Each structure stands twice: as C-alpha cells, then as structure tokens.
C-alpha cells in the first residue's frame, strides 16, 4: 500500500497524559504516561473498564482530542498533520450514517471531502460496498438496513479514503452477540484483504482476543497501560479458533490482567465494572 519501511511504526505514543478540567472542579486524570507503538498492518485492541480512557486514547491518536502532555506521531508526522493528510478512517459505536444520503452516497462522503473526482468516487464506493458485501443495497437509505448492515456501511465509508489507519471505537458494542461474532469475522476478512492498520476499542475480552495481534489492557483512574498481550493465534482465524485451547488461555490471560489490582486480589470490582459498562453502553448506545 505504501513504500514506507515496515519497521517504522504507524502510531507512536510517548508519555501521553490527558487531564480534564471542568469548571471549578478538581482536574481528573484520564490518561497517565501512555507509551505505545503500533506497527504497520497490526490489529491492536484497547480494552479496559469504563473510565480507563480507552476511547479518549483513540481520539488522541485520531487528533480529535488534544493530549495534555506527550507526543503523538502518526506515519512519522504529528497527529494533526496526519489528520490534515486524511490518514484516518473512523468507525464509531453508532453507524453515524446520514439519513439524507443513500448507502452509496454515504460511502462517498470522505471522498467528496477530499475532493476526489466523481468517476473515481463512484468506482471506489462500489468497490468498498462489494468488500462489505452490500453492493445490492447501494441505492437504499440507511433506515432500510439492519443495525449490522449499517455498521458495515460505516466500515466501507471509513475505508473509502484508503486511510493509513482505521480507528474503531466499540463498533459492535450496540449489536447482539450473534451479529457481533459475524461482524468480527467480517472485520478480520476485511483487515486481511486490505492490510490496513486497525486500532480497536472494546470492552469484550473474547472480541479483543479473537481479532487482535496485540491486546493492550488498561486500568482506570488514572488510565494506564497495565499489560500488552501478544495474541499468537494462527491466521486466518475463523469460528473454530474460538474453540481452541490457546484461545481460552489468552482470554484468561486478558481477564487476569484486567483483574490484577492492588488491594483487590479477586478483581471482582473490575469484573463488575466491565459488566456495568457493557450494559450501559448497550442501553444508551453512547461512547464509553
């Protein structure tokens, strides 16, 4: 996809802090001393309890939220520059499709903003809809599609501009378990076909393990990286992968990393928090 040397990381975070200051209230530390490198073509998941700042971290990488301290280098340049260069594709928890645009026109949106000409826009949009297997629905309006299909349109749209990095913020958090597992396989297939680098925020341990090359486990208040776990499951992964011994071992490893906390050896607090966070996100359809 690019002539850049593979050893150069796509994302390099160095000593990133984020504090929020609201009115006269004492400032809250959302992220503390985050350092992380993401290599080209990697699939990295950020997982942690609600309030660990995983969504904020994703937005810092995408230059939608400025860090309080630290460096964010994307593709060898500052994140702000990378955003100007349209290096990002974003997928949110809600599909955020525009009601007034057909499926095809929604996918064309980033290309229009980039000023790509009409013919190439159409070609690229159809190619992307084929990739997510929705080519039959290009003239439909978003409301005529199911939730899972809408999210696939959102993925097609995010990939349309050929971003160097795809940022996904709990993209399947609002879907039911069965649709979510199907979308997981779908996203893996797309990742393997396109070779895009993906940063994926989730609160589902099985999802993180199934998808990722690496899982970044975070702790809350302040948000820190607790452990980075390499997922050495064979590729291509499929439904059978979910039944292998290694898969269960890795799920356990991630769970234990989430639990480990001073003064809470059982980790029950985090376990509960994860469950509450998952329920709340499902109920509200909001950003975690």
């Amino acid at each position, binding site marked *: 996809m690019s002539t850049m040397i593979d050893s150069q990381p796509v994302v390099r975070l160095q000593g990133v802090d984020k504090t929020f200051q609201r009115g006269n209230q004492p400032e809250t530390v959302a992220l503390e001393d985050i350092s992380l490198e993401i290599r080209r073509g990697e699939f990295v998941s950020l997982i942690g309890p609600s309030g660990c700042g995983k969504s904020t971290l994703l937005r810092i990488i*995408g230059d*939608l939220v400025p860090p309080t301290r630290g460096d964010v280098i994307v593709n060898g340049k500052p994140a702000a520059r990378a*955003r*100007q*260069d*349209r290096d*990002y*594709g*974003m997928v*949110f928890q*809600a599909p*955020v499709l*525009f*009601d*007034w*645009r057909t499926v095809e026109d929604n996918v064309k*949106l*980033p290309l*229009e*903003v*980039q000023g790509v000409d009409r013919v190439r826009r159409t070609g690229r949009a159809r190619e992307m809809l084929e990739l997510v*297997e929705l080519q*039959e*629905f290009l003239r*439909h*309006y978003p*409301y*005529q*599609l*199911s939730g*899972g*299909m809408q999210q*696939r349109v959102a993925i097609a749209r995010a990939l349309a*501009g050929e971003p160097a990095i795809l*940022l996904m913020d709990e993209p399947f958090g609002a879907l039911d378990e069965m649709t979510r597992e*199907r979308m997981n*396989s*779908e996203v893996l*297939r797309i990742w393997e076909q396109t070779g895009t680098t993906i940063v994926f925020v989730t609160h589902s341990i099985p999802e993180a393990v199934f998808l990722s090359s690496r899982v970044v486990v975070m702790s809350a208040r302040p948000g820190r990286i607790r452990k980075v776990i390499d997922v050495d499951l064979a590729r*291509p992964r*499929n439904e059978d992968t979910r039944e292998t011994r290694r898969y269960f071992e890795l799920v356990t490893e991630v769970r234990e990393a989430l639990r480990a906390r001073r003064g809470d050896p059982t980790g029950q607090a985090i376990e509960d928090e994860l469950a509450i966070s998952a329920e709340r996100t499902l109920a509200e359809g909001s950003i975690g």
Partner: protein
Amino acid sequence: MTAPATPAVRPRGPAGPGRTQARIRQAVFYLPAVIVFVGGIVLWEVVVTALGLRQFVLPRPSAIVTALIDNWSGGRFPGLGVSALNTLIESLGGLLIGTIVGVAVAFATARFATARGVLLPIAVAANAVPIVAFAPLFNNWFGLLNPVSKMAMAAVLVFFPITANVTRGLVQVEPASVELMRSYAASEWTILRKVRIPNALPYFFTALKVATTLALIGAIIAEYFGGQNRVLGRVIVESASALRFDVTWAAILLAAITGIVFYLVIVVLERLFIPWHSSLRTD
C-alpha cells in the same frame, strides 16, 4: 471462509399489485375524515333550515356557495376571485421576505455565539409582542395602498417560527456526525453544507407549514386596517358592515381554501426535497 451475512432487508422489487393495495389502504384511511366533513356540512344545512335561522346569524352552506359564485367577478363588493389573488400575492410576498430574513438570521445565530446571545433574546421578546397591533404602523411606514405594508405584517409573523426552527436544525446536529467530519479534516463550511443544512431541512419545512397559515393571517389582518379594496380582508370588513354575511362567509371560505392550497404546496415540496425523512417514509 466466512459465510456471507444474510441480508435482513431485500432490495425492493418493481412496483406490483402492492401499489394498488397501498392506494386503497390510503383511501380507507382518509374515508372517516371525508365522511365527517361532508356530514358536518349537511348537518349545518339541515339545522339552519330547520331552525329557520336568519342569514345574518348563520347562512346555509348552499347560500355561501351561491354568494361565492355570484360575487366571484364583482358586483356590490370587489370580485372575490381577484381579491383572493391579491391577498395571496401579499401573503406570498410576506412569506418570502420573512423566510429569507428568518433563514439569514438563523445562519448567523447558528454560526456565531455572539449573534446567538444578541439576536435570540430579541427574537423571543419580539415574538411576545402582539405583533398584529403594529398593522396601523406598517400602513403608515409603507403606505396604506402599497401591498408592501401587508407583506410586512405577514413577514413579521413568519419570521419567528422560521428563525427558531432553522436555528435548531443547524445547531442540533449529532455530535458524532461533526466528529466524523473532523476526522476527515473537513472545514466548518463543508460541515455546514454536508451536515448542518441537510439536518435543518426537515425543521425548515415544519416551520414553513406553520408559516403559510401565519402569512395569510398577517395579510388579512393588515387589510382590516385599510388599504386597497380588492382584497379578502376588505371584502370581509365591508360585507359584514353591510350585513351581507353570506358574502363574508364566502370570502372566509375562499381564504380557507387559499390557506389549504398554500399548505399543500409546501407538503408537496417537502416530499420532493426530503423523501428520506422519518415522517415521510412509506416503508
């Protein structure tokens, strides 16, 4: 490797017998309203005849229709046809002016927080003023015989709902939509064109439907305070003072028909411009 996901919705097929069925269903839906309307008119006719009410208390519907036909092109009072046309022109002009100014103010308030702070309280305060009380002043400012004095009244009434609704449509955009556009490094101008304006269209049409009625009300009220005679407001005032209430009712009937047609035109435009909106979805 992956089983293709089964589509939850099938692509829509060509229009078949389903369309005729939909038509029938629609007709059945409106049937009760038609029955009540026709029944009401018949009841009105029967009751007025049975009680022997005098025409200056309440004329029979048939008498109103007769008066409408007899006075269409003039007689003792200015022709109803030309009067309705003149009133329509006044309210259209007012609607146009009020809409243009209202939309302009909405864009300013949506774009600049300062403008929002200054203009919105004034607009709210202005809306609390009984605006029709200004009609004699408008006659003075723009000339009694000048249709602009009537348009001004209509425009002022139209202005507020248009401004308030369009501002809301421009401002109340899903935050995630704006975040999405920012991730593409889209400019404020692009966000305005591709997100805010399309988002505001349904609000605009809702306001426009209210505004058509207000424009007609504004024009007729301004006419009550004097001006040229060949307008519905003058016919209503003059026929009423001459105790020719059948003509008064005919003029009111014509004003109502004008208002309904006016409204329907907006509904058609709405269907053309925002067929995607949830209130207009057919499936």
